[in-house]
């Protein structure tokens, strides 16, 4: 009855352009400029610069600083950064790890991965308003963090992986704590599973095509959820000895990422448990001096969000000439501008969260 007022020509409406982030309850650390046609996103631009700390420049002040800064590259995965840096220095000095130290590193990296994934699950479930699952994941995250703290100390003081090995041996009660977490996880798997309504929200959300993901330099769970078997750990002998097989998802959407994360939490905890049982004897660390060797070396670690690498260039002096870090988050953020087009505004926080961006790591 009111439609008579409508002109018979096409309906020309205006787009609503809005900022989304950096201070948004759902998206923090990056700013999106969303162009909304109705409630549907028709263009998304990413703006960075809210988490830049100039870490790489700071790392040039000395080896001690560089080692400390390596564990600050991704604040949510300090040990992965430290491991990448340690491997770079070890490659410079051509040092070998003892079997015990290698196994201990596996344990801490896997425990860190489990904790990070659980935090991701809790966050995504919270955004989905799947409150029981969010609470469960949060609870498990706290338990995993406690176990992590047993090994490496309180968060913020986590310099445990050092060039040449690890800073201290694993405490005796770590294994018990770990199996406790694992048991709790087994009991909670049902609760972590998404109900049908939540699954419908995640289905097809932030769909990443495998080929495109490779092209853009994606890594970690984002890439593996598309079915691409890319995992640094497959090339590691220690991991192979522990029976590691990468978990793969299919579909590449947020739902695939969710189930991949759930599976990887279990896998990570099991790997950590295996790594800590029957530890080979030996020293946990050797002294690996960074001063006196010149050259360029690179070290990698598979962090919770994907491959983290550290590149060290030195002339053998008291401070590195250049330390560079690289992680997958920048590539993942780059995917966003394609992923968000066509999705509803209500799905934007979910889509952003499902990529598990660490803007600290992306901007360094």
């Amino acid at each position, binding site marked *: *009855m*009111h*439609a008579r007022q409508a002109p018979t020509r096409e*309906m*020309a*409406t*205006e*787009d*609503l*352009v*809005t*900022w*989304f*982030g*950096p*201070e*948004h309850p759902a*998206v923090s650390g990056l*700013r999106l400029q969303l162009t909304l*046609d*109705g*409630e*549907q996103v028709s263009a998304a631009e990413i703006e960075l610069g809210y988490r830049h700390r100039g870490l790489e420049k700071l790392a040039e002040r000395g080896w001690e600083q560089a080692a400390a800064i390596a564990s600050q590259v991704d604040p949510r995965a300090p040990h992965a950064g430290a491991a990448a840096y340690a491997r770079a220095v070890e490659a410079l000095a051509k040092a070998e790890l003892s079997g015990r130290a290698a196994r201990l590193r596996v344990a801490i990296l896997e425990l860190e991965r489990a904790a990070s994934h659980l935090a991701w699950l809790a966050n995504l479930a919270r955004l989905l308003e799947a409150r029981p699952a969010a609470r469960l994941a949060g609870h498990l995250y706290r338990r995993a963090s406690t176990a992590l703290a047993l090994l490496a100390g309180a968060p913020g003081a986590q310099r445990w992986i050092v060039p040449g090995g690890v800073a201290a041996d694993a405490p005796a009660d770590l294994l018990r704590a770990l199996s406790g977490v694992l048991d709790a996880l087994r009991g909670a798997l049902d609760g972590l599973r998404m109900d049908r309504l939540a699954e419908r929200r995640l289905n097809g959300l932030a769909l990443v095509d495998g080929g495109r993901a490779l092209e853009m330099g994606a890594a970690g769970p984002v890439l593996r959820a598309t079915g691409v078997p890319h995992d640094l750990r497959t090339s590691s002998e220690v991991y192979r000895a522990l029976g590691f097989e990468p978990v793969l998802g299919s579909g590449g959407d947020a739902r695939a990422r969710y189930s991949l994360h759930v599976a990887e939490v279990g896998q990570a905890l099991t790997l950590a448990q295996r790594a800590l049982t029957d530890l080979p004897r030996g020293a946990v660390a050797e002294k690996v001096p960074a001063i006196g060797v010149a050259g360029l070396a690179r070290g990698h670690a598979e962090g919770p969000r994907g491959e983290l690498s550290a590149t060290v260039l030195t002339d053998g002096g008291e401070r590195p000439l250049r330390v560079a870090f690289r992680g997958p988050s920048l590539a993942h953020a780059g995917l966003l501008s394609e992923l968000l087009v*066509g999705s*509803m505004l209500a799905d934007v926080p979910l889509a952003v969260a499902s990529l598990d961006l660490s803007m600290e790591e992306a901007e360094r």
Partner: protein
Amino acid sequence: MSDNYAVLATFLLAGVALAMLVLALARKQEAPKAAEPFESGSPSEHKTWVQFRVRYFLIALVFVAFDMEMVYMFPWAVVFKRVGLVAFMDMFVFIAVLAVAIAYAWKEGAFEWER
């Protein structure tokens, strides 16, 4: 009956007065910076009151039709028991026609979100 409405009118006036009183007594914000609308922490730059594309366009149209229908339903419901079968058959036809309307709108994708 008008007694009832006189009381309700008192309620209406009281509600308006109460809300206005609370607003009048409220402490006013003086810092102009605080008056910037929330837009994720950035100053708002783009036009807000745009010609927004209302995507539930079709549903809105169908809604008006059904809103009208409700007007018929309530008097019918009140006398339903008294009139009996005739009223039932009457409403049956009524609802059947409406169901056709719903089915048609559904089939034509009026309830699907436009992509």
